[in-house]
């Protein structure tokens, strides 16, 4: 029976490989992951295992308020209703400790083949499946508004925005649904 060839198989074909240069995808400058990068560089170089005694970065009342839908004019420019624009997403969590949130993220990431690195309350998730365009990498950080109220921020790193915004069963959206308390519209 005839079957369609998969992209992975095409990539292995000799005739395809002739003169083929794998594309290099520019990282969009939308997200600034310098601080996260800096932390992980240190982590990898010094192999220090730190006790998570520190508190998550504090978030003040105005930063909290700025999460309001009513203050975000980005909706003006949504041609189609891209409900899950996950370039940067934030979610509030009530009555859950920061450590519990980290645990939730790790649990959600495990079955989806993400490699998780974390230091204190910043985490980096690496998608090892480089099938499509580049690696889909994600940085998350937990902020504390009050001991009982935390905010989780997800930012996208390299990868195809389209993949990022696709259908519900997409791995990243699953993770977000788990710990962002975001309802898919």
């Amino acid at each position, binding site marked *: 029976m005839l079957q369609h060839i998969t992209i992975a198989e095409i990539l292995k074909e000799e005739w395809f490989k002739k003169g083929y240069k794998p594309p290099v995808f520019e990282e969009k400058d939308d997200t600034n992951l310098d601080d996260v990068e800096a932390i992980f560089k240190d982590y990898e170089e010094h192999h220090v295992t730190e006790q998570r005694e520190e508190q998550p970065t504090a978030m003040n*009342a105005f930063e909290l*308020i*700025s999460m309001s839908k009513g*203050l975000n004019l980005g909706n003006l420019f949504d041609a189609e209703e891209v409900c899950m624009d996950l370039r940067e997403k934030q979610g509030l969590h009530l009555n859950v400790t920061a450590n519990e949130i980290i645990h939730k993220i790790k649990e959600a990431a495990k079955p989806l083949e993400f490699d998780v690195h974390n230091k204190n309350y910043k985490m980096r998730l690496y998608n090892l499946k480089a099938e499509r365009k580049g690696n889909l990498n994600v940085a998350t950080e937990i902020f504390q508004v009050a001991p009982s109220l935390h905010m989780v921020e997800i930012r996208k790193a390299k990868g195809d925005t389209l993949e990022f915004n696709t259908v519900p069963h997409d791995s990243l959206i699953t993770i977000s649904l788990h710990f962002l308390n975001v309802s898919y519209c």
Partner: protein
Amino acid sequence: MVKELAQKSSDRLFARIPSLRILFCLVMHTLMGCFCLKKLRHKPGYEAPINLASETLFTVNEVEALYDLFKKLSSSIIDDGLIHKFTFFEMFFKQEEFQLALFKNSNKQNLFADRMFDLFDVKHNGVIEFGEFVRSLSVFHPNAPEADKIACILYDIRQTGCIEVEELKDMVMALLCENNMSLSEDVVDLIVEKTMMEADTKRDGKIDDEEWKEFVKKNPSIIKIMTLSDLMELTLAFPSFVMNSEVRDL
């Protein structure tokens, strides 16, 4: 097109008779004037893109693209060339949520959209005209000076010129309400107090302009909402302005 034709015919026929050429041009110009009059019948509050472009960070083409957006927003219920509050609110809430908000008649849910509307409604006449729309959006442009973005109008609910503790408390409650969360008053007080400690350096229970500027310097993420990167790609988002463009940007 008409201009070009006029040019060609006048060149050919009146090459040797300058005065006739002038007369011809005059006649053509008047005739064209009659055709152009149709274009000028814009809605009230309309300002020419060229004028708006010279006063804001937008190019003429971008202002034309914004006009497309404005038309879309202002004509959704009443087509009078103005954005009314309920249209503005619709932008922020999905249809269901909007209906719910109205039904609940809870001011808290619309508190922030209300403030945003006030920011745009410079004349405070309850509607947003095209000129106000463009000028206000210019402040959100990534290249707009930070000083413009730091105005604390947004958070000054009672419009007293500064942000009071009670206003901040109201806003925190409104935000929680929006997310269907509730915290005990103690916890809300804690959150607000902590922020006031940092921002209210004069310890007078309110954040004035000076204190606000200092606070924003220490916490630049607060004015993240005052920048819309989408404004850099306006002509891509609304390409139909090309049909009616008065000017071609280089």
